[in-house]
């Protein structure tokens, strides 16, 4: 859609240009259509959906949503997902910022190798290591426990975080460090009092990406968590969808409720994300 306007060179007429707005409206329709279908579909009954798959609810029914909201399964899964995502994010940020600080502000032998190690990790998401990872977790006795998901997720979250944070920390002016040294502030003190506060934008960006990634992650929990009680939301959605495969309306309600937290989280901080990546993506 955007392409259509682009292929039509015209003098910059500002946004009085109706074609631009048409393109944007189309874009929003295509982007949000399926999402709205899920949300609105949750307000219909199964017979409404069968008779007229694309119609609007008539009448609106709230039973599907209240059914999900009053089920303990849903809330347990929300709790599990929250715990996993929060712990993962905290771990990734803490370990990531420490290692990034070393990579950005110290000079030592093996620095390049250390950077390359983490950069290489960026190329290999959990998919390739998933089977031995499962065996490792099994040997550690962590199958069907949340730490069994959290620990590997922290490890796999580190590369992206470090790659984004290092340029951020490097951009802190040398003068600040020298001034801190003059004031008898140790390098660790400098890290704690100056680097951490200044790197908050980068931390927010990587924190949100990690949180959303963990909230949505599927493959690792699929391998590690087999017990219904430990399911995170993505596993729950899938289990629910196969258990109630005939009850489409209920599945839609469950699905739309489970995507709310990530959406809220992301839209609150969207501006920060673009800002935070700007430091990392060198144009």
């Amino acid at each position, binding site marked *: 859609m955007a392409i259509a306007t682009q292929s039509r060179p015209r003098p910059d007429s500002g946004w009085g240009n109706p074609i631009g707005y048409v393109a944007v409206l189309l874009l929003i329709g295509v982007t949000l259509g*399926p999402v709205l279908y899920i949300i609105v579909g949750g307000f219909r009954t199964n017979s409404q959906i069968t008779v007229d798959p694309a119609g609007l609810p008539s009448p609106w029914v709230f039973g599907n949503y209240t059914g999900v909201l009053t089920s303990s399964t849903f809330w347990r899964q929300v709790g599990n997902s929250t715990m996993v995502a929060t712990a993962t994010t905290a771990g990734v940020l803490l370990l990531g910022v420490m290692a990034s600080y070393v990579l950005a502000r110290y000079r030592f032998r093996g620095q390049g190798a250390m*950077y390359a190690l983490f950069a290489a990790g960026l190329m290999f998401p959990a998919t390739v290591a998933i089977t031995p990872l499962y065996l490792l977790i099994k040997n550690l006795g962590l199958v069907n426990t949340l730490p069994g998901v959290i620990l590997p997720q922290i490890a796999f979250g580190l590369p992206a975080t470090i790659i984004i944070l290092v340029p951020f920390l490097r951009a802190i002016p040398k003068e600040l460090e020298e001034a801190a040294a003059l004031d008898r502030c140790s390098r660790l003190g400098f*890290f704690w009092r100056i680097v951490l506060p200044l790197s908050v934008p980068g931390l927010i960006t990587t924190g949100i990406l990690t949180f959303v990634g963990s909230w949505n992650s599927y493959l690792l929990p699929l391998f590690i968590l087999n017990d219904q009680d430990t399911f995170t939301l993505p596993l729950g959605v899938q289990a629910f969808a196969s258990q109630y495969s005939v009850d489409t309306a209920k599945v839609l309600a469950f699905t739309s409720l489970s995507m709310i937290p990530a959406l809220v989280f992301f839209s609150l901080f*969207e501006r920060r994300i673009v800002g935070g990546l700007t430091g990392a993506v060198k144009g």
Partner: protein
Amino acid sequence: MRSRRRGIGWAQRLEIAALSGPAILMFLGFVIFPVLMAAYYGFYRWKGFGPPTNFVGLDNYVTILQDTAFREALWHNALIVVLSLVLQGPIAVGLALLLNRKMRGRSVIRVLIFVPYVIAEVIVGTAWALLLQTNGAVNDVLRSIGLGGLTEDWLANPALAIWTLMLILTWKYVGFAVILFLAGMQNIPEELAEAAAVDGASYWQTQRRITLPLLGPTVRIWAFLSIIGALQLFDLVYIIWGQYVASTAGTSTMATYMVTEGRNAGNYGYGNAVAVVLFIISMIIALLYQRFVLRRDTDGALTGGR
């Protein structure tokens, strides 16, 4: 500064070890070690109980390379890699240009375009599977607007399924490319566009001669991430097509093959060998890409910060 000239002392070494040690240990323990173990297990026929004893050498690898199901999966992966670049790249550049301009409601639109990227693969898969099934909403809409002839069996028709997958992938991941491109565009100094405007360049000339060339490094990094992601694609295929249907619908990938033939079939040795093949293919492509495409961006984010 002064201490640096003297070389690093014990105190600094201790600081370095204390600060970077935990991250390195985690990374080695849960990323590098499993990858090495995959290489080890891959030489065994092993059901996952007790230590592996039945050493079979390269048998697993021979089986993989001879299995037509794997070759089909490999072919699907290749298609997905190329089509992702060709479909998502131009769309994302167009959208980023559009959203980089001052217009009313821009920030709202930016959030909206990222919505699919933020939604979990499981949810995206479940929703699209419902929309696209034979009696689903998409076919219903087509029928009601008089295009009944266009209704299709979107998911099960082998000639069509891979394109359906590409459509869903584009819908889901184009937002990520747009985020990256917008971030890259913010790095391009506005003075350049202003200077061009003074010289009488039109908006489109400015974009073509200034914005797009300067966006090059960002595009190349995005392409890299997209290629790696496409090679490892698992979630959406597994959720929409399930473990058994994927291969008959022509959408199986190396990763779904690995999970189906490895874990689900209880052949852990074999599954690990598939993981190794997947790893080697990804690594070769990543190294070639870094060598021939990313090399000119030696200042890029991937290769050393600034």
